[in-house]
């Protein structure tokens, strides 16, 4: 009753735990996939943080609360949010940094990669070239519609904040743009019949730099749609799929007159290659003019031409973009390893194509030959820390060479988490030897332009200390559970054996013993009925009766031997002495039982086997040897236990009796516990049966490896002699 109660309670608790776990998992999944998780969303650019934004191309950096991409890359993206967001609106301020491109928002995006249209989603952007809102769908391809800004708005200008709002509800996509939130915005609306249902949001710019701020994402309903549509000049598009791209169709792009954008101008003929700057006298201040492409704008401006790079300090700070072709004139100053152009007047000549990085080894970079140059190096990340103004400082080494990479604040906290120590990284940036950056700790530092310029080539090796500890704990648990399982199986086996024995005992009792008894009674009846004169027949019948009685006694003995005996190791000796007492009951045979050594607890299997062997030995002694006394001795030693059954009976010639069934049976039992059985006897001297059984070392926490090894060895040994484990067949 009790055990079943306990087991049912355990089952109840188990199912309860499983239910809770399942519900928890379902709840967690539902929460993660909820279309409203994390909404409404407000950016934290103002506090200098951009957690959770993921860059695909571009040079994304936070500058005084504004997220900027200074590159003119075609289709630089920065994404965030949940891939399960469905109906929502995104609004914020957008600024174009270049003349010819566009910038805006991505909605319902998924499956993003680096590349122009490498995402599935919608893009809504402001395009200065044709003064319109461009609205399109990307899916590793591009289809768009453009909606000219309404007449009430001025023509679109570069370096002006526009308020852009995009709303997606069902398959309807609405965008509105205005100079200020107060003015009636230009509206563009579109219904995509086979629309993309859900996805993240993002910032994107195309062939122009862009700046974004105050981004808010909210859930959107039909009500919001109506409200938005009511607010402005609707430029509704027919409900047809996006037409295929035809840029030539964009009629009459009204190029805006530039406000403060530098006009392309002719280059100064007096420019010199940048590398020649170091030929200038170290003492005499000198002026020089160089021409090159801007490779870095923050924390300092670097300009590079085909011969090398130089740091430029502007006399009048002017916003430059990476990739601008500039002409800079200023005073040449020499630092320890590099030249600097101070008080420089910088003229932007035109917007060029950013130059690619030169791939060098850290050793090459450390020679100074690539100072102020845009390079690409590989190294193992050894340390990460925050430096001045939340910039991220990464220390690398590659072989014996160490270097440092410095990343502008912005997305550094995200990177700080993502980058794992000891992983192999490739970083791109401007190599500088300035001690202001290296801290005199490394020969050079790399000023990384954006988080996108760090590639993880290989994660940290698996054999980190933590992993090794986890692995060894795992192995330990595995070994312990294997050991536990082994013992459990061994127990089951023993139980099966005991059950089978019991069945055999029943069988024998119910058939063999009963028949023998019945035949005995029948013989007795015949004997009584026979006339007294038939003496010889009487004698034969007496003999037969005696045989039958003997057989019955034998059968009873066998049944007794097969009956289960609950054996605890401490009463092995008791059990054997009881057994001996019973065997000699009614006779004058003396039984002496003793034990020596510290009694170890024996496993059920060993105790049982020793008991069976002892029982057999005692029975043999009583049956055949006619002893005066029986000595049962149990000797405990460190790793073994020895059982001696000693009789002072008749004894026998050793060779003859070694293969009798009884001895073979005992030997077979002994083998099952890897024990050794010895029978010593000589006529007239009595017999001693000695069983020596090794004790399994106790499995303690410290000894488990040796213990498992021994178990393994033992099981291997037990498996081998399949044919030999039946001594009956062996002896023929």
């Amino acid at each position, binding site marked *: 009753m009790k055990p079943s109660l306990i087991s049912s309670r355990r089952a109840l608790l188990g199912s309860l735990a499983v239910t809770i776990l399942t519900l928890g998992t379902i709840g967690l999944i539902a929460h993660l996939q909820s279309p409203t998780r994390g909404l409404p969303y407000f950016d934290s650019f103002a506090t200098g943080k951009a957690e959770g934004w993921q860059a695909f191309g571009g040079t994304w950096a936070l500058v005084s609360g504004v997220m900027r991409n200074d590159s003119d890359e075609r289709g630089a993206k920065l994404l965030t949010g949940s891939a399960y967001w469905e109906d929502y609106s995104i609004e914020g301020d957008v600024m174009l940094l270049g003349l010819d491109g566009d910038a805006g928002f991505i909605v319902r995006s998924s499956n993003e990669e680096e590349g122009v249209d490498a995402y599935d989603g919608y893009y809504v952007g402001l395009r200065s070239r044709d003064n319109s809102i461009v609205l399109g769908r990307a899916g590793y391809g591009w289809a768009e519609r453009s909606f000219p800004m309404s007449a009430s708005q001025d023509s679109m200008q570069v370096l002006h904040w526009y308020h852009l709002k995009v709303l997606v509800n069902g398959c309807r996509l609405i965008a509105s743009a205005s100079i200020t939130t107060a003015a009636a915005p230009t509206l563009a609306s579109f219904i995509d019949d086979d629309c993309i249902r859900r996805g993240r949001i993002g910032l994107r710019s195309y062939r122009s730099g862009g700046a974004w701020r105050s981004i808010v994402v909210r859930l959107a309903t039909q009500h919001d749609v109506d409200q938005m549509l009511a607010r402005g000049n609707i430029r509704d598009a027919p409900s047809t799929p996006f037409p295929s791209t035809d840029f030539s169709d964009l009629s009459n792009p009204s190029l805006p007159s530039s406000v403060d954008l530098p006009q392309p101008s002719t280059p100064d003929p007096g420019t010199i290659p940048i590398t020649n700057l170091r030929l200038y006298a170290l003492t005499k201040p000198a002026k020089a003019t160089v021409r090159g492409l801007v490779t870095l704008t923050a924390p300092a401006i670097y300009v590079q031409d085909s011969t090398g790079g130089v740091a430029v300090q502007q006399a009048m700070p002017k916003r430059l973009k990476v990739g601008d072709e500039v002409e800079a004139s200023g005073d040449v100053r020499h630092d320890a390893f590099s030249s600097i152009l101070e008080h420089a007047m910088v003229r932007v000549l035109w917007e060029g194509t950013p130059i690619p990085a030169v791939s060098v080894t850290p050793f090459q970079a450390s020679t100074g030959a690539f100072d102020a140059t845009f390079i690409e190096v590989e190294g193992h990340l050894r340390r990460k820390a925050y430096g001045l103004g939340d910039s991220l400082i990464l220390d690398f080494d590659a072989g014996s060479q160490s270097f440092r990479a410095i990343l502008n604040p912005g997305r550094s906290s995200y990177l700080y988490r993502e980058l794992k120590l000891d992983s192999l990284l490739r970083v791109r940036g401007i190599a500088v030897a300035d001690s202001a950056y290296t801290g005199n700790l490394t020969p050079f530092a790399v000023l990384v332009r954006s988080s996108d310029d760090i590639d993880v080539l290989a994660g940290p090796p698996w054999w980190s200390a933590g992993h090794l500890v986890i692995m060894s704990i795992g192995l330990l648990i595995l070994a312990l559970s294997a050991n536990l399982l082994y013992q459990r199986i061994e127990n089951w086996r023993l139980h099966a054996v005991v059950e089978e024995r019991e069945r055999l005992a029943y069988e024998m009792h119910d058939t063999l013993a009963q028949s023998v008894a019945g035949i005995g009674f029948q013989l007795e009846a015949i004997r009584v009925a026979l006339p007294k004169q038939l003496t010889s027949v009487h004698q034969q019948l007496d003999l037969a009766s005696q045989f039958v*009685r003997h057989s019955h006694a034998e059968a009873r003995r066998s049944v007794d031997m097969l009956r289960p005996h609950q054996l605890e190791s401490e009463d092995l000796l008791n059990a054997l002495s009881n057994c001996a007492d*019973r065997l000699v009951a009614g006779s004058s045979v003396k039984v002496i039982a003793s034990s020596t050594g510290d009694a170890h607890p024996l496993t059920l299997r060993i105790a049982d086997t020793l008991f069976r062997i002892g029982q057999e030995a005692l029975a043999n002694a009583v049956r055949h040897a006619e002893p005066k006394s029986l000595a049962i001795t149990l000797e405990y030693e460190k790793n073994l236990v020895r059982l001696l059954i000693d009789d002072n009976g008749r004894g026998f010639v050793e060779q003859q009796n070694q293969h009798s069934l009884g001895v073979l049976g005992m030997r077979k039992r002994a083998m099952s516990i890897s024990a050794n059985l010895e029978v010593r006897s000589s006529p007239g001297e009595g017999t001693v049966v000695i069983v020596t059984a090794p004790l399994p070392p106790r499995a303690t926490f410290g000894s488990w490896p040796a213990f498992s090894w021994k178990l393994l060895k033992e099981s291997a040994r037990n498996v081998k002699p399949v044919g030999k484990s039946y001594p009956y067949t062996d002896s023929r």
Partner: protein
Amino acid sequence: MSNPSASRIRILIVDDHPVVRAGLTSMLGTQDELEVVASASSGQEALAFLQEQEIDVVLLDLRLPDMIGVETLLRMKRSGHRARVIILTSFETDEDIYRAIQAGAQGYLIKDTSLAEMVEAIRTVHAAKRYIPHVIAMRLAERMMRVDLTPRELEILEYVAKGLTNKQIAHVVGISEFTVKHHVDSIIEKLEVADRTEAVTTAIQRGIIAP
């Protein structure tokens, strides 16, 4: 003696094995003073026979297909039969013997007993005495005496018999009260009794501790 028409002892054999029944019937049939009235192969059958016929002595096997011999014996006694019972079995454990005698068997025989001894036993039991062979008697005594109590449990049982509380025993023996309680529970379980008072009574009855 209850049946004056014949002075022969009327016997019922209860054994599920036909060879045994036939053999016993033949063997006991050779004796003039005995009369094998019937033989039954199950407990139910035996009880039915006892309802119908006047029986003096029942030779009862312990293992029967429908109910064990002791159960049959108990039911017989409960329904008020006056027949005397000899257990006739081919196998015996101490427990079997103990329970059979407790249930009210007057004799206990092993099936390889000789005819002469068996007749003697039947006669003795019929004469309202007990017949228990020496070997069986010894084992019965052993079973009655046996205690599975550990020395510590015996010690504690003696204190319990003196009327000490667990707390007092813990103090005297120098172990915790919790351990004493554990030992007492173990004693109660081993003696198969309900509480500590009964444990003491039983222990005294069985001679485990001195009164």
